[in-house]
């Protein structure tokens, strides 16, 4: 910076005259300014907690959501199959346990409550039923009606389930679970072979191939020559 080559006048005598007034700032002002200066450069160690708490909250929220939905296995898209009544599982419990993980991998995740629903043919809202489901429901209702016809002694005028299954060539070694047996019985109790045939066709149309095949086997055992007599192919 440019310095004065020649000062206009000496400072010191004038400074002495001015300083005679002994003007200085009050001590409180000194203390206030020094405190503000120290505060301005004080380490900000206490500021860490804000981002840390935000991160912890976010992590906790993510963990809760993952835990919640991970347990429930909520499907990304709820398909019609998810809404259908539970399938009659004819595999033995051990086999079902083994195949469970594989099923989870192959099919989209299902809502747990649907998977764990009772295996019985549960009444469903009418709006959800259609096609084979309605046929099955009709068959179940018929069973229910026949059960109502049971007299007070517990005797029925119809053969019991075991007899019906035996009559249809049912192999007890491959016995389905009670609910599945009930459904099989329900189909077997469809009196006319035409209705049974239609129900089997409906099952196959619904994609429940294994059940349709099993039911067809029972049907053929019950009515060995009916298909030939009617000139029909296997449903």
């Amino acid at each position, binding site marked *: *910076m440019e310095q004065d080559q020649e*000062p*206009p006048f000496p400072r010191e*005598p004038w400074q002495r*005259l001015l300083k005679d007034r002994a*003007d200085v700032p009050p001590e409180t002002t000194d203390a206030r300014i020094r405190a503000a200066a120290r505060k*301005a450069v004080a380490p900000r160690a206490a500021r860490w907690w804000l981002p840390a708490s935000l991160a912890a909250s976010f992590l906790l929220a993510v963990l809760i959501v993952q835990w919640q939905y991970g347990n429930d296995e909520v499907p990304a898209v709820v398909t019609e199959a998810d809404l259908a009544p539970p399938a009659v599982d004819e595999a033995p419990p051990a086999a079902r346990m083994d195949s469970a993980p594989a099923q989870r991998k192959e099919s989209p995740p299902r809502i747990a409550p649907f998977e764990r629903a009772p295996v019985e043919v549960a009444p469903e809202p009418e709006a959800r039923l259609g096609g084979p489901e309605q046929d099955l429901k009709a068959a179940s209702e018929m069973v229910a009606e026949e059960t109502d016809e049971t007299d007070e002694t517990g005797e029925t005028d119809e053969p019991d389930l075991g007899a019906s299954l035996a009559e249809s060539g049912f192999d007890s070694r491959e016995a389905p679970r009670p609910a599945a047996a009930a459904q099989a019985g329900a189909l077997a109790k469809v009196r006319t072979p035409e209705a049974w045939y239609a129900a089997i066709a409906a099952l196959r149309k619904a994609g429940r191939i294994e059940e349709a095949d099993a039911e067809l086997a029972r049907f053929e055992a019950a009515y060995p020559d009916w298909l030939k007599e009617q000139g029909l192919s296997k449903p």
Partner: protein
Amino acid sequence: MGEGDADARLMLRYAAGDAGAFDALYAAHRGALWRFIRRSVKDAAATDDVFQECWSRVIANRERYRPEARFATWLYRIAHNCCMDHWRKSGRRDRREAMDDGAIAAAADESLDGPVEAVLAGEASERLAAALERLPPEQRTAFLLYVEGGLSVAEIGEATAVNPETAKSRLRYAIARLKQSLGDDAPD
């Protein structure tokens, strides 16, 4: 400049977080800055406000400070701006310009702590204070920056945003008037 300026180094140290450097800076400049502001704004309460505002700006702008000029130049430029803001806010500058000599002398007397101090301060100091009050603000500021702030003519120009020739001219007029007011008591 600034390489050899001890105050500039202290300010840089303070900006880096050394509170002790600020204490040293403050101790070196508090008296002169206080007197500069007191004689500029005259009102005792306003002096305290402007003084604190000035140092607050120093603290707030510590990281923006660059030792391109002497620290004192930067400090007194801030102080001058604070005085200007005070004048704008209070509208006092115009009134100060219009004050007659008697009122100014009476106002100068108000700043004395008491009769004993007034006697001790000496007649020359009293007359200088009164003469300073009578100066036009620009000349008074130039004089105070030169005497109290220790600024050079060029630095006065920088602090008050005028060219060095104008600053020098204001300083010469100021010293001529003060000498005329003090008579034989004026320093050589």
